[in-house]
């Protein structure tokens, strides 16, 4: 499909054409119950569409989103729906949201959007709402209950009283490593809504929760963090199968806390280093996570990509469509009771990623 020389094609020698022809849809089989129809959904996240001025936008980020959309449309059989995981815009501007929404509008299938901090802190999600509706909601699909949370809220003080202008508020929150930022949270109001939403469900109903920030605490300095994560986890704990999928981190992470499985998704725009590569930081990267390779900046789409997800096993299987790296699949290991990388988790097959300097 691609004539470009990519790291993968250089290393594999065989060209990059495998990417689209091997989308492993046929592997999706229903492993439990049999009362539920099988399906996959597409997960695209963190496009960070960035306006330069007028009608010109940063080409690099545009290309990431366009490529994800084009590839997602080629999947057979088609996904049942698409999730966009947040941070469609870089600075929350209408122009950026409109431009991103236009690219996303080419997607086949229904789109459900998640709020990211880059979409929110200019006008507190006002314009985003005109495009994508409520900031948090739930829906049912083929026996699975899906919940979309807005996890990037923060204190009233920071949101309403700290900054002289909305533009500055947006800029301060947009800097990942900016000490003037503020920890993300779901907040009381939304947790009450969540408790209500869950109250009517059978505890055997599989739950899939979409949030932008991790509903767990990894590294506060970069907001790989949700301040009330434990309270949200407590609401989800009584269910048999709980799966949280989050964006924001631009890297592969997975974890298990009690009955809750966590999977992150990749960005289409650019990758982020793992927090442990910041020499002055203390990070709590889940020990389960086998990191992705260090990004090679000479290949523009390296360490970016999108995901195909199914819950055929009763838990999330995330198939990472990585453009310049080997594809990875993270699936729930029912014996171990947590997600594993199906190729690299076993110590005997352990092929460690490069050193993260």
């Amino acid at each position, binding site marked *: 499909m691609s004539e470009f020389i990519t790291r993968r094609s250089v290393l594999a020698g065989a060209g990059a054409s495998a990417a689209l022809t091997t989308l492993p849809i046929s592997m999706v089989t229903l492993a439990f119950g049999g009362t539920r129809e099988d399906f996959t959904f597409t997960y695209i996240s963190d496009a960070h569409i960035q306006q330069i001025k007028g009608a010109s936008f*940063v080409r690099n980020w545009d290309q990431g989103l366009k490529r994800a959309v084009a590839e997602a449309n080629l999947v057979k059989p088609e996904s049942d729906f698409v999730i966009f995981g947040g941070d469609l815009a870089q600075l929350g501007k209408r122009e950026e949201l409109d431009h991103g929404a236009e690219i996303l509008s080419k997607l086949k299938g229904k789109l459900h959007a998640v709020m990211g901090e880059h979409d929110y802190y200019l006008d507190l999600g006002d314009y985003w709402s005109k495009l994508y509706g409520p900031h948090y909601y739930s829906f049912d699909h083929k026996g699975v209950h899906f919940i979309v949370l807005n996890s990037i809220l923060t204190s009233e003080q920071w949101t309403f009283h700290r900054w002289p202008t909305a533009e500055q508020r947006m800029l301060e929150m947009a800097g990942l490593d900016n000490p003037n930022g503020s920890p993300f949270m779901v907040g009381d109001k939304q947790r009450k809504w969540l408790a209500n939403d869950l109250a009517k469900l059978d505890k055997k109903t599989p739950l899939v929760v979409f949030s932008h920030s991790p509903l767990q605490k990894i590294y506060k300095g970069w907001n790989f963090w949700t301040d009330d994560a434990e309270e949200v986890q407590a609401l989800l704990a009584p269910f048999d199968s709980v799966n949280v999928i989050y964006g924001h981190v631009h890297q592969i992470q997975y974890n298990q806390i009690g009955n809750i499985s966590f999977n992150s998704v990749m960005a289409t725009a650019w990758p982020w280093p793992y*927090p442990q590569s910041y020499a002055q930081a203390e990070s709590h990267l889940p020990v389960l996570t086998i990191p992705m390779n260090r990004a090679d900046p000479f290949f523009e789409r390296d360490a970016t990509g999108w995901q195909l997800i199914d819950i055929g096993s009763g838990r999330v299987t995330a198939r990472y469509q990585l453009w310049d790296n080997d594809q990875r699949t993270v699936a729930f290991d029912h014996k171990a009771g947590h997600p594993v990388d199906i190729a690299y988790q076993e110590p005997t097959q352990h092929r460690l990623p490069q050193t993260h300097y």
Partner: protein
Amino acid sequence: MLRSTLLLAFGLAAFGATTARADEFTKTDVERYQKEFEQVAAKGRELWTSGALGTNGVACAQCHPNAANTHPETYPKFQKQLGKVTQLFEMVNWCIRNPLQGANLPPDDPRMTALVSYITFERRGVKLAPGQH
């Protein structure tokens, strides 16, 4: 910790007031040198996060929060994509030309000095590993 504290106490007792070294920098000197560096590194942090180095508003910090994943301790090193042994400033310029769609800074441009100061400061304490890829 306790042991080193004790050793220090012993050392002080043994040498008393004669520990001053020959031609020592004055406290004022040292403070000034430190402040000069800190100001330049702070200027580097400002440039790093500003989006003003290139033409498209992209900032270094978008991909490299706290200058992470820049591994300054490994330079100079053979950069296979550039086909030669390169210094850190050449890689900074590569980023300015490509993701930032800007123009090279001269190696001794005060802005380059500021950027390299900031990158290195964020990596303080890490062992030098020149040539490491």
